[in-house]
């Protein structure tokens, strides 16, 4: 199906994009188009103006500044998989990108687009939450940096103003032991359940840092802060972890749909946490 009639403009610079976005109240950014195009075709979205930000050079940068890796909003899933800078400094992000959709979608879809789309089942968010990522937003008037956790509001909803563009994601370098798990029935599907976890521990097994986030289990991806604080500083036994996981999963409220019932999603999440978070905690002791 065709989108509703619309005007299309290519922005070569951020300033050009800001001025284009200010021309129409319902103007929308198009990045890789892998989420917005399907919505335009279904006419769930029908902006009168699309501003293509692909030509803006600075949005394609991947840059190491001290202890942070800054990834431009227009960097594609494929470029994340292939970047040696990301491989060295954020292997967890690279592994996450490998599980997104399929070859064709990874060739076009961008990290900025995925974050702004805020699909509760998308893959980057749990990883980026575990990594304590921030996003940089710019408009003609101001620039602000926001924790990703505060940027995500709910399903398909983020804390962005009309006329603002997400320009980059800032991620503290992290080479700690991690686990990224996506469970889907078919490899190109969205997750039925997903988890991203980082665990640092002393040689005796005491947990010194633990960060766990889950996707597809609520109206937005979630950091499991309570579970983290129960386990941090501890040397848990398997039965302690299992008990706490079962309790934590009770609080989740996943969607019930054709990809999986709410009960099923919770069950899968509990199993992923026990198995994969478990092997981070108990492995190598």
């Amino acid at each position: 199906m065709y989108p509703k009639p619309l005007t299309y403009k290519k922005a070569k610079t951020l300033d050009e994009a800001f001025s284009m976005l200010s021309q129409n109240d319902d103007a929308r950014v198009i990045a890789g188009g892998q989420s917005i195009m399907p919505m335009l075709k279904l006419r769930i979205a029908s902006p009168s103006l699309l501003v293509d930000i692909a030509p803006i050079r600075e949005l394609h940068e991947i840059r190491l500044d001290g202890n942070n890796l800054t990834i431009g909003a227009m960097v594609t899933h494929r470029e994340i998989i292939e970047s040696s800078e990301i491989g060295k400094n954020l292997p967890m992000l690279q592994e996450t990108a490998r599980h997104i959709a399929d070859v064709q979608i990874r060739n076009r879809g961008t990290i900025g687009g995925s974050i702004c789309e805020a699909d509760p089942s998308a893959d980057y968010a749990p990883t980026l939450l575990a990594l304590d990522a921030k996003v940089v937003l710019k408009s003609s008037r101001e620039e602000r940096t926001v924790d990703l956790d505060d940027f995500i509001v709910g399903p398909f909803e983020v804390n962005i103003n009309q006329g603002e563009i997400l320009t980059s994601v800032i991620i503290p370098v992290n080479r700690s032991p991690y686990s990224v798990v996506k469970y889907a029935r078919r490899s190109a599907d969205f997750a039925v359940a997903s988890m991203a976890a980082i665990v640092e521990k002393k040689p005796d097994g005491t947990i010194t840092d633990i960060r766990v986030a889950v996707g597809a289990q609520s109206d937005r991806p979630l950091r499991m802060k309570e579970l983290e604080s129960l386990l941090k500083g501890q040397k848990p036994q398997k039965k302690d972890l299992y008990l706490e996981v079962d309790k934590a999963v009770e609080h989740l409220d996943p969607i019930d749909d054709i990809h999986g019932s709410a009960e099923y999603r919770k069950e899968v999440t509990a199993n992923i946490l026990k198995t994969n978070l478990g092997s981070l905690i108990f492995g190598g002791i």
Partner: protein
Amino acid sequence: MVENRHISITVNGERKEADVEPRMLLVHFLREIAGSTGTHVGCDTTNCGACTVLLDGRAVKSCTILAVQADRRKITTIEGLSKEPGKMHPVQKSFVDNHGLQCGYCTSGMIISAYWLLKHKKNVSEQEIREAISGNLCRCTGYDNIIMSIKDAEKRMEEEGDTLEEEQAVTVRK
């Protein structure tokens, strides 16, 4: 009133120009203006991959790109794989010889995805083949013969000296 835009897309080496509505999908430009009807529309929802083409050397779903986004870029469709008129590309030939298609609806997209894989990797494993075509659905074959065809295509391309290819750098374009 939305104004038409004048665009020029190089399809299989030939420049195709037209005034189009900005909302026109690339797949419709290819089929209706460039006449490359080998590119199919299956699901129209970014799932099936029947519309897969190469955009500046990268496999993409042409139902999920506006024609205006491809202005001044290069597209390769199934019709453009073979270098010699009337002769099939080794990937096409191996699909025919290995029964890699039944109704043929998915085939052009499947072959473009296979071609893209074989132009990027050597000694591909079955796992890599399955991963490479995970964005292409086939309702007929059950995939086994497609996978066989792709394995065979790799051998044939090697024999014909059809080697790995550099993509053009396209991410940034003024």
